[in-house]
């Protein structure tokens, strides 16, 4: 069995709009090994959530390949897709919107088991729901509560329990902590860490928060406007970012000390419009070390060392 669980090749997702094609995800490739986490980081609207949804086929891709354990996800028929979804789950960003307000906690967590006919009787279902609640640290007294009665952290635990219900091997974490208080964030992140070790889970961890990404993932991919601009293991990317965008991004992490100040790189201008983007480097307009070649030729993601990839004419 190969060590690679998920392999994404040249994945594209365009949305049709009245003004033209919106390039949400534009030709990205990455792999995730079993039991590991890939952190996907980028600013709002750069296509990171879309990537997560296309990988799970909650959205249909425009082009490209997604291989899950060697099988082509995008070619799955209805039955195969159902089996795939037992293996690949998602935790959503907003624990308020992602839980049906008319269902109790136990109903929400038990639903995947009922739909996929994993249990035949109520007693067994109940037992498994309580066990799942215990796994994610939810007291069983909340079983008959409704989501709106619980705080954000507990709600997110419900979402995690629902994702775990089918014993998946792969979970897309779509900004699972960005809607939570900082104190709760740490709890949830630790919980995810424990679950990963316990169940040997593989995560695609999507976030805009580099601090959070640093905490959870060994490998990091930085996205900018639908493209992966840099992909690396986390220690080298934090020590020595190669792509100018990554440099700017890292310089924005606050240091929690008064006497130390980081030299911030302030980017000028705005993110360009993803609708029918011009050829050339997506970052050209805001880059502080651009060259003429960047204007017309889109840099490809090139391997610069064993674990590092960067898409930049200047950095390599």
């Amino acid at each position, binding site marked *: 069995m190969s060590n690679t669980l998920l392999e994404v090749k040249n994945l594209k997702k365009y949305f049709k709009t009245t003004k033209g094609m919106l390039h949400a995800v534009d030709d990205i490739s990455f792999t995730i090994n079993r039991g590991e986490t890939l952190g996907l980081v980028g600013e709002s609207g750069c296509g990171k959530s879309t990537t997560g*949804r296309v990988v*799970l086929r*909650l959205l249909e891709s425009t082009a490209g390949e997604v291989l899950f354990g060697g099988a082509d996800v995008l070619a799955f028929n209805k039955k195969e897709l*159902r089996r795939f*979804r*037992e293996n690949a*789950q*998602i935790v*959503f*960003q*907003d624990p308020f*919107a*992602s*839980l*049906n*307000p*008319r*269902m109790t906690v136990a109903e929400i967590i038990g*639903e*995947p088991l009922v*739909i*996929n006919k994993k249990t035949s009787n109520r007693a067994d279902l109940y037992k498994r729901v309580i066990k799942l609640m215990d796994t994610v*640290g939810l007291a069983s007294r909340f079983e008959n*509560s*409704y989501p*709106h*009665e*619980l*705080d954000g*952290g*507990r709600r997110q635990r419900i*979402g995690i329990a*629902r994702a775990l*219900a*089918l014993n998946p091997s792969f979970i897309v974490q779509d900004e699972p902590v960005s809607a939570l208080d900082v*104190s*709760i964030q*740490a*709890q949830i992140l*630790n*919980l995810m860490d424990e679950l990963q070790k316990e169940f040997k889970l593989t995560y695609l961890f999507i976030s805009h928060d580099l601090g959070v990404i640093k905490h959870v993932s060994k490998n990091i991919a930085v996205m900018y406007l639908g493209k992966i601009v840099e992909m690396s293991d986390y220690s080298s990317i934090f020590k020595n970012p190669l792509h100018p965008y990554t440099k700017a991004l890292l310089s924005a992490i606050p240091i929690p000390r008064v006497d130390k100040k980081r030299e911030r790189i302030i980017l000028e201008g705005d993110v360009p419009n993803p609708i029918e983007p011009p050829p050339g480097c997506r970052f050209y307009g805001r880059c502080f070390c651009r060259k003429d070649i960047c204007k017309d030729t889109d840099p490809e993601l090139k391997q610069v060392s064993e674990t590092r990839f960067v898409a930049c004419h200047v950095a390599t």
Partner: protein
Amino acid sequence: MGDVTVNVNNESKKKRSQLHDVWRRFRKSPIAMTGLCVVVFMVLVALFADVIAPSDGRNPGYDIHNLGNRFQAPNAEHIMGTDEFGRDIFARVVHGSRVSLLVGFIVVTFSMTLGVIVGAIAGFFGKVAENILMRFIDVLLSIPPILLAISIAAAMRPGMMSIVLAVGIGALPLYARVMRASVLTVKEQEFIEAAYSIGASKFRIIRKHVLPNCIAPIIVQATMGLAYAILWAAALSFLGIGIQPPTPEWGAMLSEGRMYIRDHWHMVMFPGMAIAIMIFALNMMGDGLRDAFDPRLKK
């Protein structure tokens, strides 16, 4: 970790489900509660009509003729007077509540069921299905209800069925539109995507996730719709294309009394009052329900 942060939401202890919440807000409104009480009273009257106005053994309570007693003004024996056949108007109004409420409930059930199905399909699937269904609804909307009722009554025998069809078809578009609008907002929410991700079928998603989150506006619409149905049923009976005599129906009673209105005001007064009170109560209740379902109106 785990219990380091204590996050107890005190408010959450009080409320159980959302419906409980709605009831709590509903109870606070005196107008809505008045409406509810009147409606409940009317329903009880309808249920116990045979006890309140019993039959004499040969004829039902509402159809006991006594030609010697014609056109009596309200008195101790006949508190609402008698009509041109000497029948007790009070008994007829009491029994009439049965017909009105029954017609109302059947119409609401009929138009709500069809409207909800049409609206849900149109809203959820969109595209071609939506276009076909909603244009069909537009066609229904463009037919004047009276005209539709007259044609249906002409095609069939006038009676309960023709009223139900005519008024029901007239009310259907309202439910379909309300339903479609709320399905459109609900289906974009993340928990629908979550349901897809755990492998739920479209049918299950509609049944378990979309419909339960769309019922609030439909309940409000149904309460208002009940008033609308009763009013229209009375109007059609008044015109003679609804419930036929001797069955007592408020609208039909108005129609009979119309000829004697100069000399015997009580013949139109009491059935008219019954209609007005019923509609008024239902509308008060509907208004209260609408406010109670909308938490943004919390004072």
